[in-house]
């Protein structure tokens, strides 16, 4: 394995900045790595070799001109295919968008380009981010580098697998109900879901507008924090974007690495554990809690009585919004058109296109959402789910009265086997059990590796109050530091 690909993003940027290595060499090393292993991992839907090298060259030229480089300039990144890229095909993992070349960049794409980040390509994902294993992709099945028979999680499984297999030091995922944290957990890397509204959604192909949030993946907490600071911040193109300063996550990651958590109160959420959680996961989680205590944190148990209803509320709210967000895929302005034989009506062509273009999970959720919003059912389903959302937010508010952060396992189990849950939607949905409450309340949450269970990584979830993303990073960095080296280093070689 080339030394260049095993560096952290922070180290890579420092070397490029110091002129020890060129951005082009770094990009080429990662493109070579993709060429060597991605037929087994299948993290990428498309690799943009030309675009990556061009972006790397631009960084090298800026460096040659003596320009000050940003903290991630020249660092390669894998971008989830839900994020719109001007001139580069973007599909959201769906056949219905196959071949669509966006005429604009997402705000976060623009920010990363401006920061000199080198986008290597677009990563595989569950279609429209609906899933927890990346098996719902219309194009490929992504494999977990820890065990190729297992899933890398989902829906950002392409991004998590790319980082975990050293194809890229950084990746972008999106998290609607856990789609950053769960894949990070099961691939042994760091993934953070920012406070809702702190990263622009402009240019993220919407799944569930009131929940979607883009966030960083890295092999270290600091790397994730560095990427977080590039993508976060107010965007006037997103009405739900918060016009407040970005939390100091990089400083928090550095501070946490000192391993001193004195004065911090950590709450273990009683409802996110126990029955249904793999014993290996529970053991790793308990060990992590003890490490926090050892570093000076006060660890208490708290109850969030309505978290048990998060799954039900989520699987009403997200499909409802999705049923509306996905209506635009109608064969008129872009994307697939099926059955236009000159005789059929538009209505028939629309229905045939959507039938052919969407996979079973997407159709299932569209129908659930259509049902939940229908007159006569709205109050009992969508309306009630929104009330549960209020109750979950109140549970968080109560818990944060006494705790600075809350912790839980990031997932109830380690990476499950490919194919194991594809025919059982409810079993698949259960993979998000721990991550859903933070999504519904819009609060930030990170997953950081906290040991192994039977040789597979376990994630610790750290949740903080809205806008206090820095607390997640601080605690995560402390946990990371307590293991000496990032756990990903113990992943089997590919």
């Amino acid at each position: 394995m080339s030394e260049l690909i095993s560096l952290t993003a922070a180290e890579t940027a420092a070397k490029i900045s110091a002129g020890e290595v060129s951005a082009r060499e770094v990009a080429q090393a990662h493109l070579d790595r993709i060429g060597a292993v991605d037929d087994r991992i299948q993290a990428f839907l498309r690799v943009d070799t030309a675009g990556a090298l061009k972006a790397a060259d631009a960084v090298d030229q800026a460096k040659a001109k003596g320009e000050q480089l940003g903290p991630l300039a020249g660092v390669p990144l894998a971008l989830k295919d839900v994020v719109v890229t001007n001139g580069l095909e973007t599909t959201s993992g769906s056949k219905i968008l196959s071949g669509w070349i966006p005429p604009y960049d997402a705000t976060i794409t623009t920010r990363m380009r401006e920061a000199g980040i080198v986008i290597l390509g677009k990563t595989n994902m569950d279609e429209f981010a609906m899933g927890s294993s990346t098996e719902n992709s219309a194009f490929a099945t992504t494999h977990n580098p820890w065990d190729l028979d297992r899933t890398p999680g989902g829906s950002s499984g392409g991004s998590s697998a790319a980082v975990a297999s050293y194809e890229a030091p950084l990746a972008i995922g999106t998290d609607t109900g856990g789609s950053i944290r769960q894949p990070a957990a099961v691939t042994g890397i760091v993934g953070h879901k920012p406070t809702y509204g702190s990263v622009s959604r402009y240019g993220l192909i919407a799944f569930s507008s009131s929940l979607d949030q883009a966030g960083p993946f890295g092999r270290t907490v600091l790397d994730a924090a560095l990427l977080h600071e590039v993508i976060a911040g107010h965007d006037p193109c997103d009405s739900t974007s918060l016009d407040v300063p970005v939390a100091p996550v990089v400083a928090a990651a550095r501070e946490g690495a000192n391993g001193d958590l004195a004065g911090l109160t950590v709450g273990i959420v009683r409802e996110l554990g126990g029955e249904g959680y793999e014993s290996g996961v529970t053991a790793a989680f308990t060990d992590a809690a003890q490490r926090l205590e050892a570093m000076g944190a006060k660890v208490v148990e708290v109850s969030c009585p309505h978290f048990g209803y998060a799954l039900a509320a989520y699987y009403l709210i997200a499909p409802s919004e999705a049923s509306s967000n996905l209506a635009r895929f109608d064969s008129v302005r872009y994307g697939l058109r099926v059955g236009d034989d000159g005789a059929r009506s538009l209505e028939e062509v629309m229905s045939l296109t959507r039938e052919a273009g969407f996979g079973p999970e997407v159709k299932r959720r569209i129908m659930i959402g259509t049902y939940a919003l229908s007159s006569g059912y709205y109050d009992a389903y969508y309306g009630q789910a929104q009330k549960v959302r209020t109750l979950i937010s109140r549970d968080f508010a109560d818990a944060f009265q006494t705790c600075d952060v809350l912790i839980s396992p990031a997932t109830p189990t380690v990476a499950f086997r490919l194919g194991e849950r594809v025919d059982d939607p409810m079993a698949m949905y259960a993979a998000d059990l721990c991550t859903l409450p933070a999504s519904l309340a819009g609060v930030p949450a990170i997953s950081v590796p906290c040991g192994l269970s039977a040789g597979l990584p376990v994630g610790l979830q750290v949740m903080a109050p809205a806008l206090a993303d820095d607390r997640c990073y601080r605690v995560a960095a402390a946990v990371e530091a307590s293991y000496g080296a990032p756990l990903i280093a113990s992943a089997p070689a590919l």
Partner: protein
Amino acid sequence: MTTTLPPFDDVVARFEPVIGLETHVELGTRTKMFCGCMTDFGSEPNTQICPVCLGLPGSLPVANKAAIEATIRIGLALNCSIASWCRFARKNYFYPDMPKDYQISQYDEPLCFEGYLDITSEGQSYRIGIERVHLEEDTGKTLHVGGATGRIHGATHSLVDYNRAGIPLVEIVTKPVPGIGAKAPEVAKAYVTELRNLVRGLGVSDVRMEQGSLRCDVNTALNLPGADWGTRTETKNVNSLRSVERAVRSEMIRQASVLDGGGRIVQETRHFHEDTGVTTSGRSKEEATDYRYFPEPDLVPLAPDASWVEELRATLPETPSVRRGRLQEAWGVSDHDMDSIANAGAVELIVATIEAGASSEAARKWWLGELARRANETGTELDALPITPAQVAAVAALVDAGRVNDKLARQVLEGVLAGEGDPEAVVVSRGLEVVSDTGALGAAVDEAIAANPDVAQKIREGKVAAAGALVGAVMKTTRGQADAKVVRDLILERLS
């Protein structure tokens, strides 16, 4: 099935109508409701589009402040309460002219609610209740190809232009208006006319029905005296003020005919046809539409605070009715005449003509006379005629200067309307100036005297009144361009 339709008088003698109006006003903001695309009317198709108004994946809406303020001002002018907190909602249905296949609209939380508009029709005042005023986005425009006359029926395919998609649209819904009997058609028209004047006075829209920036749906129901209100129908495609009146009348007659035949009124959408003046049924859809409204998650709530609302209230101009009262006094016209002026949509045109230098008499005379006749002939509104108040004032100035008489002035107006340029240019190109040069008229006078020896003799004998016949003859040979007073003087001079 052909049935004889009952006469309108008979319908209103036996049934009571309840009407309601839903009016859509396209705001004249520079940019669209949720994106920065321009709103220019008549641009090349699909040149005012961006990721947002095209509904491209990933795009998000941001509300236009000017549109929110215009809506609040309309609400205030309609005596509405302004919501202290409200949300946009998604109205979900598939249609190709709607880029996201949902419309961002408002559902149970309109920005403005519970107001009224006072109107006058034929000397009678009415207070029309306003249920709500809300803001939404317009759809694109669809062109149907391959069928007859561009109709959807029989078309082989359709073409969509999204320039209009996303233009802010204010929907103004009245409460049901019962108890107006035979006056229902006129009241409906007077309401839309007054609403148009009010919106125009606010300067937030050019409210032109023929360009679609003012669109009106008319709800009509009939019931027997003392019975519950009948089932209502919603008539769309009502594209002029005159059509508002015609649509109500025609729908009342049709419903009476159905009820007379023992039938039931079906709650449905009907289309008004300008050419025939009747409504036809929209084909009933396979299933009732279920719009699945829910709060728009991409837009945060609107919460206009009291100080913002009061700031906007301070910008309201005097209401059209107060303004009319003031103008009526200034012009010295009767209630009845002022009503006709208002109903003709001529108030602001007359004001502008006076501002351009005409007397109020002349301004009223030309707008309500010749120009109203022309508008009526061509089935357009007065303000849609291709003539400006300044041009009308110029015509009045020509008359005052004695350069044209009334008859010639009508020809000047005709020339302006035909696109021949300003009044001065028309006078020159058509050679319409009054001839008062005695030398030039002398020959014509001599000719008239020679051709009418009997009349000439009478005048010589002192019957001066007979001179009129000779004047008429001279006017005829000069095609009306002679100055009649000069001609008369010449005749009397020669025959005395």
